[in-house]
């Protein structure tokens, strides 16, 4: 031990902190910019509520306290700046802890900087996946901290204390304790002397076994499989899985890896440049891995989701048209945003509609529970929006998004008491308290709901009559909604969008007479385009009850036909060529999708 301590010099100390600082800054820059979507996504996955009932649920299983700590820190992702600082700190701390661990182990300078950076870098790469949670980072950090304590001295007192604390550590961190057990065994085998090697190894192994048996059979109502794995990383991504296995192995074998001797002092001066080159190479490697793992489509969709959740509909439309994605959820959000801004049939083809009618309603399954309520909220089927939000709450627990939707739908439906209940929960949070207080006024003065521009509009378009909601074919609700409330233009346009996307031009055109009753004075652009297709096919204009197709559209249609015919005659008709000029028309969708 004394030997290893003597190796660390002041210069090397500076190197270590320099590389840790570089890591911290790099991580901070990534999460505050390109990786900010990860913070938003994770912040939306949980809601940290300061209520005894909520908090107590984390104490009924091993690893629960760790998850609680993870959720506690995650709530600060509400602010990208604060979140990035906290996350980067937590990711940097394993390196700091290992730096202190290295003082105890026989790590040579040759490797120490590289070795201590690896867990942080691995966690950073894992964190670039949006399902990698703060809990995982904290789990590894606690393992290393505990190991720092265990390796702080070889005295019997420390080793006995380590074993005594172990059950508590298991309760706090769950399955991370097994990683520690592995790490401790390796440490004991390499660094303890004589009979102690066997003694401590057997003791911690036996303790682990006893803890598992007692936990399963006497203390916790948790299946054994869960006791063995919770809350270790379980992200459904191949790279993430490899990284997890690598990190687990690395942490467990750390004492063995660091046992390999080596020192810059014995190295030729010309090769000493490697002391910087190796860590720099590791950083570059991590950077390359980060870039290859980065999926801009996912980032865009989550950024769009943020705008939708914040009800910034116009910004969402602009963002999506600027950064379109070939993603179902993205296109669904685009359609919802267009509906909320009353321009669905005016510009739905201004961006991609690759999924046809599928991007109008999300399928009813666990995967889409998160987002499915928005369309029903947009078209005024508030009961169904409530149902989706409630189902999400049941399956995934409190989330800012589902609770906010439940507040709004209950206020609109006149259920002030339930709205108050959800508001009461949101008021027990750090960052949604103000939002909840803003909405609380609607539960006190219910007359103000109708005068609110957003909530009032929803009340205006709600169904007046009752019908049973079609769950598996949600489009069938659209005509019922219009029939039940002829003032619901959003439902009508959604119906028309369904018909346009399914290329049922005839039925769409037959609906135009209803538009007069709905108060339209001019036809939306894409419906005009549908009329032109109908006319082109039937050679007769449909009955439009006095509404007319604009000159701009007929002129554009003439150009479309001319261009289309010319390209086809020259056998040069390509989707790309047409898209550049007519990509934002229904005609292009009609021909090429």
């Amino acid at each position, binding site marked *: 031990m004394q030997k290893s301590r003597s190796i660390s010099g002041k210069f090397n100390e500076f190197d270590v902190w320099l590389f840790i600082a570089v890591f911290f800054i790099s991580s901070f820059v990534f999460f505050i910019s390109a990786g900010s979507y990860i913070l938003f996504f994770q912040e939306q996955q949980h809601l940290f509520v300061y209520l005894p009932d909520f908090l107590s649920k984390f104490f009924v299983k091993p690893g629960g306290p760790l998850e609680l700590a993870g959720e506690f820190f995650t709530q600060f992702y509400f602010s990208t700046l604060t979140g990035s600082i906290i996350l980067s700190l937590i990711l940097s701390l394993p390196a700091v802890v290992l730096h202190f661990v290295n003082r105890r182990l026989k790590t040579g300078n040759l490797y120490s900087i590289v070795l201590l950076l690896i867990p942080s870098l691995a966690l950073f790469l894992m964190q670039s996946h949006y399902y990698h949670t703060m809990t995982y980072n904290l789990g590894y950090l606690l393992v290393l901290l505990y190991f720092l304590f265990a390796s702080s001295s070889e005295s019997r007192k420390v080793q006995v204390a380590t074993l005594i604390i172990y059950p508590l550590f298991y309760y706090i961190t769950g399955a991370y304790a097994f990683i520690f057990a592995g790490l401790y065994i390796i440490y004991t085998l390499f660094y303890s002397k004589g009979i102690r090697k066997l003694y401590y190894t057997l003791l911690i192994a036996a303790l682990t076994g006893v803890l598992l048996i007692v936990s399963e059979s006497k203390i916790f109502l948790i299946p054994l499989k869960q006791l063995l794995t919770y809350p270790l990383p379980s992200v459904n991504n191949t790279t993430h899985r490899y990284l997890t296995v690598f990190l687990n192995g690395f942490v467990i074998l750390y004492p063995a890896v660091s046992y390999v001797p080596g020192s810059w002092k014995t190295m030729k001066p010309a090769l000493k440049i490697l002391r910087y080159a190796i860590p720099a190479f590791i950083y570059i490697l991590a950077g390359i891995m980060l870039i290859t793992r980065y999926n801009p489509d996912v980032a865009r969709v989550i950024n769009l989701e943020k705008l939708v959740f914040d009800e910034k509909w116009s910004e969402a439309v602009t963002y999506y048209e600027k950064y379109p994605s070939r993603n179902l959820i993205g296109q669904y959000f685009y359609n919802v945003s267009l509906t909320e801004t009353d321009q669905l049939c005016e510009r739905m083809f201004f961006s991609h509609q690759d999924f046809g009618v599928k991007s109008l309603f999300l399928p009813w399954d666990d995967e889409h529970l998160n987002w499915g309520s928005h369309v029903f909220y947009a078209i005024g089927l508030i*009961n169904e929006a409530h149902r989706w939000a409630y189902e999400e709450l049941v399956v995934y627990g409190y989330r800012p998004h589902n609770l906010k939707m439940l507040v709004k739908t209950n206020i609109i*439906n006149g259920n002030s008491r339930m709205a108050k209940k959800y508001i009461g929960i949101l008021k027990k949070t750090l960052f949604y308290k103000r939002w909840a207080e803003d909405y609380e006024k609607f539960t006190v003065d219910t007359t103000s709901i109708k005068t609110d521009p957003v909530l009032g509009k929803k009340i205006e378009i709600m169904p007046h*009559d*009752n019908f049973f909601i079609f769950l598996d074919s949600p489009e069938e609700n659209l005509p019922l909604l219009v029939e*039940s409330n002829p003032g619901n233009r959003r439902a009508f346009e959604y119906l028309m969008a369904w018909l346009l996307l399914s290329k049922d031009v005839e039925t769409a055109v037959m609906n135009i007479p209803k538009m007069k009753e709905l108060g339209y004075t001019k036809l939306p652009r894409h419906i005009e385009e549908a009329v032109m297709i109908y006319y082109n096919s039937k050679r007769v204009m449909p009955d439009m009850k006095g509404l007319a197709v604009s000159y701009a559209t007929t002129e554009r249609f003439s150009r479309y036909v001319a261009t289309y015919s010319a390209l086809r005659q020259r056998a040069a008709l390509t989707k790309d060529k047409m898209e550049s000029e007519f990509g934002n028309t229904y005609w292009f969708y009609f021909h090429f999708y």
Partner: protein
Amino acid sequence: MPILPSVRHPHMPLWMLVGKNKCQLFDYYFNFTAQIPFRHNDKESMTGIINIKYKVIQPVFLVILLLLAGCEAMTNENFQKINSLPVIEPDYINVTIPPNIAPLNFIVRENGRRFFVVAESEKGDYKIKIRSGNGKICFPMKKWRKLTRNSMGGRITVRIFLSGEQDKITKEYQPFSFYVAPEPVDSYLAYRLIYPGYYCWSNLRIVQRCVENFSEKSIIENQVLDMNCINCHSFCNNRPDRFMVHVRGSKGGTYVVSDGKIERKDLKIDPMPGSATYPSWHPSGKYIAFSSNQVRQTFYANPSKSIEVFDLVSDLIIYNMEKNSITMVRDDDTTKYLETFPCWSDDGRYLYFCRAPQNVEEPWRDPEKMELIKYSLVRVPFNPETGVYGKTEMVYDAAAEGKSVSFPRVSPDGNFIVFTLAAHGTFPIWHREADLYILNLQTGELKKMDINSEETESWHEWSSNGRWLVFSSKRLDGRSSRPFYVYFDSRGNTGKPFVLPQKDPERYITMLESFNLPQPVNGKIKVDPRDFVVSSKSQSVRAIAENLADSLPEWKKERAEMKRNPGERPIHE
């Protein structure tokens, strides 16, 4: 001094007047003056008992305390008497409670800086004083027990005082009472904790709550049973050692607990249109009646309603525990009806159930058609010795009155039957208009119980002594059901119901789960979730059909075979 009201309080039970004259009542109400000193640091303030017997010591004690605290003595002149009852949550004002109930902790919903509560027994021989800074009033368990014990057959008077600035008491509200009935309630209550949702569920637990204190323990949890749905817990004569639970899914089966042993059974036989559900134990413990249903739910578009649960098809069956056999309850008429919610009479000689004529085509397509489904209350005679049943008799023709009956429950003395009456349908959980009605089986008199609210009342059950009825009510927030107890005397009169008290009186305010199917149990249930896990690993014992000739009528077959929509899951509340 105010004038005594000349009539009894509307919620005062009749037994309260027995043995008392008006003068005594007068004394009780108004001889309680406001000489109550409160100190700054006396948690639960003066926590204890100031027995009226210590008439000499008390004033000295009070003077010392007042001097120490620098407080001025309160007199009737220095604070305002509010001529109204305080608002407290839950509403425990003038409720009738059993002597063995846990403390009725509550929150004072009035504006004040500090809150002071004095609860005193009728005889004046015991008193609890509590001080609170946030309005939460939590009675110490031991003192509460003594207070209720001293007040059995009488009442506890509760007075609430508020202070404004400088801790000076500024207001006293009208006192109210907890009427303490002489008869205890079953010491445990079993219920399922579940989100009152639509299709999805996550963690489900059936728990037992000791109503004499606040301990709540799981009987069965689905997280150790592959997250299967667990439901329909039912007890034989309120016994803790004889009950059953259904599990649906990979660990599926009917888990029957007898004398601490759990047996996993498969009660689905071919002629049954669906799984066995809505169980009712025969008083002898030899039989369990079920209905076998294909249950579906559909959702309304208009916010005036939310969910409609209905049966595509339903039949009655009787399971013989000894023979492990199932008999379909059939006569000529039953093939034309939907039949559900069986319930045995107290002597086991009648099986009550609800039935509706099957004359509505595809009601799930149209809310107006759905409103045509109305169930009436009927019964069949049953011979427990032979297992033979007779012809169906009409008990209450609700359909003729445009109503629909659910959940009949016969009182342990056999004199009354309580059921839920709604505008239509079979599952009134989501019907705001659903109320509890009581039918006197001796006189045939039917009346709406005076314990109903604007919200749904349902899932009621009798205590083993028949003096308490526990029921689910959604009155607190309109969505989550909460267990309410109501006192029920031999003449059918009721007290004011009260919600099951909680250690933290705010629990109902933030809690979203429902207390589903509350069942009073007269002792602690010994089996725990691990016992169910062990049983779930055993092979289920398949029941045999008593009469192989049983088969379903064609229309029932068709409906029984109708497939669920993708994503649709069983009903779970």
